[in-house]
């Protein structure tokens, strides 16, 4: 179980910064810009939530196995695949949270900053991001928990290899299959505690958001 816990934590350490960077960038693009094909991007971004994890995993498996660079690097069924897999089902949560955070920032505040001499990048760092920070952090907590709990997509593209790709949810599955309920229950309890903690963080952040506004 310890090795599964370490793998899960390593996955989280890689995915949390990626969720933050990609989620904030795409959330900002969807909230603040207008361009041709925005509706299509909107649908593509949310699609992983609408698809069963096995279908999403299958599509990823088919796509990644046809990319020569990925095939040669033997990414599939290895730790990099276990780290990559949870991003797909959890990114939509992060993007939607960042998008709604950015959309909730009063346009006039950004316009005021513009008349005070700030460039768009400075406005993002000084106004837009700080004011949507709580939404983004709440989204990050939820998306991280979704990533930590991913089962289907990880199983499809990384397999269930103990010590290499077996994360905590896969560990529970293997132990239940082997009728080893004690270890499965301990791992489940650990994930439940982490889930409750992240929800409490989200609740607290949402409370502060209401207070601020």
């Amino acid at each position, binding site marked *: 179980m310890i090795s599964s816990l370490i793998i899960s934590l390593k996955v989280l350490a890689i995915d949390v910064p990626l969720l933050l960077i990609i989620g904030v960038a795409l959330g900002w693009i969807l909230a603040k810009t207008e361009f041709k094909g925005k509706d299509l991007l909107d649908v593509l971004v949310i699609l992983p939530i609408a698809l069963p994890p096995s279908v999403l995993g299958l599509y990823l498996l088919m796509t990644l196995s046809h990319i020569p660079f990925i095939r040669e690097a033997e990414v599939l069924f290895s730790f990099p695949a276990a780290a990559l897999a949870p991003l797909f089902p959890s990114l939509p949560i992060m993007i939607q949270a960042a998008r709604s955070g950015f959309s909730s920032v009063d346009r006039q505040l950004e*316009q*005021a900053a513009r*008349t005070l*001499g700030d460039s768009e990048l400075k406005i993002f760092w000084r106004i837009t991001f700080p004011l949507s920070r709580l939404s983004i952090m709440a989204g990050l907590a939820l998306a991280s928990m979704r990533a930590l709990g991913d089962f289907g997509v990880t199983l499809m593209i990384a397999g269930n290899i103990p010590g290499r790709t077996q994360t905590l949810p896969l560990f529970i599955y293997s132990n239940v299959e082997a009728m080893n309920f004690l270890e499965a229950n301990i791992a489940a309890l650990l994930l439940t505690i982490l889930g409750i903690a992240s929800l409490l963080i989200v609740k607290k952040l949402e409370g502060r958001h209401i207070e601020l506004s």
Partner: protein
Amino acid sequence: MNCLEASFSKDLGSFSLRISFELGEEIAALFGPSGAGKSLTLKILAGLDRPKEGRIVLNGRVLYDSASSVFVKACQRRIGLVFQELALFPHMTALENVAYGLKGPNKWKIARQWLDRVKLEGLYDRMPNQLSGGQRQRVALARALAPKPDLLLLDEPFSALDGPMRRALRRELKKLSLESQTPTIYVTHDIEDVCSLASRVFLIRDGKTLASIDVDKLWDPHAQESIWHSLGWGTLIHGKIEEDGGSLYFKWDKGRLKVSCSRHLIGEASVFIHPNHVKLLYPDVPVDPELEANVIEGKIIEKIEINGSVRLYIKGSGIEWHAEYPGDSYLMLEIKEGQNVLFSIAPSKISLLTPCFNSVS
């Protein structure tokens, strides 16, 4: 010498904006009814909206020229803008708000000096939600003026304030604008704001500049007629202010209105009544004490419904009164043309125009 020369147009579906004016080193009011295009004009000047064509030149610097495809971004225009909703940054203190547009090692010192100038000493660390409406207004004003803009724009700066607070801020704005020698344009639909602060007024209606009038000439009945006819909306009456039984009344040949003003103003005067301040009364309902003194009987000569509002032309006491209210108000009165109605105007809502107005406000 003109600081600002602006002439531009913009089409927004059924609404088209055609603005043209010149401004010297002075305070000017952009005056007109709601929906005339006043706020859009400010946004275009500030560079927050792009016109279809035209030219804007500020102190010899071309900010926009459709012919040569020049468009200077808002962040490079050096134009301060105070929004109607103020747009103070809610996550920053009053001091941080004022220092926002400043650069260099002295920025905090300059920001503190500005807060002191607008009488907010000691409130540096207050967050915007810990300040009163008037204090927030002052922070917004200090924030816009601190970077020494070449032009200051204010969108309905007094709309959220009432009575003494409004008058105090008008005086402060005038002082600050003159001291900092910053040409200023502010949007208003209140004639009192125009008379007490501006030296020039640009009349705007339906997206077009109709006239540029020197405020000193506002007392001239011909200029008043011109404003009134230009705007075509609002009630303007010529008469005089008299004292009667300890109260002051504005009297004209066929009627009188109780007014609340200083005794200094006794004598010849005119009043302007905004259509939103003409209140219809229900015949069987006790009249609001504020409206009791000025009840007038009239006949509705025309009713027009526009954008969810109702405009009424009412004939009463020898005057054609203009009233406007939201379409879902007064439903029980079943208003129709030819109907007799009772209406009133609160004394505090009557704007007085007198030759000595500037000196007493």
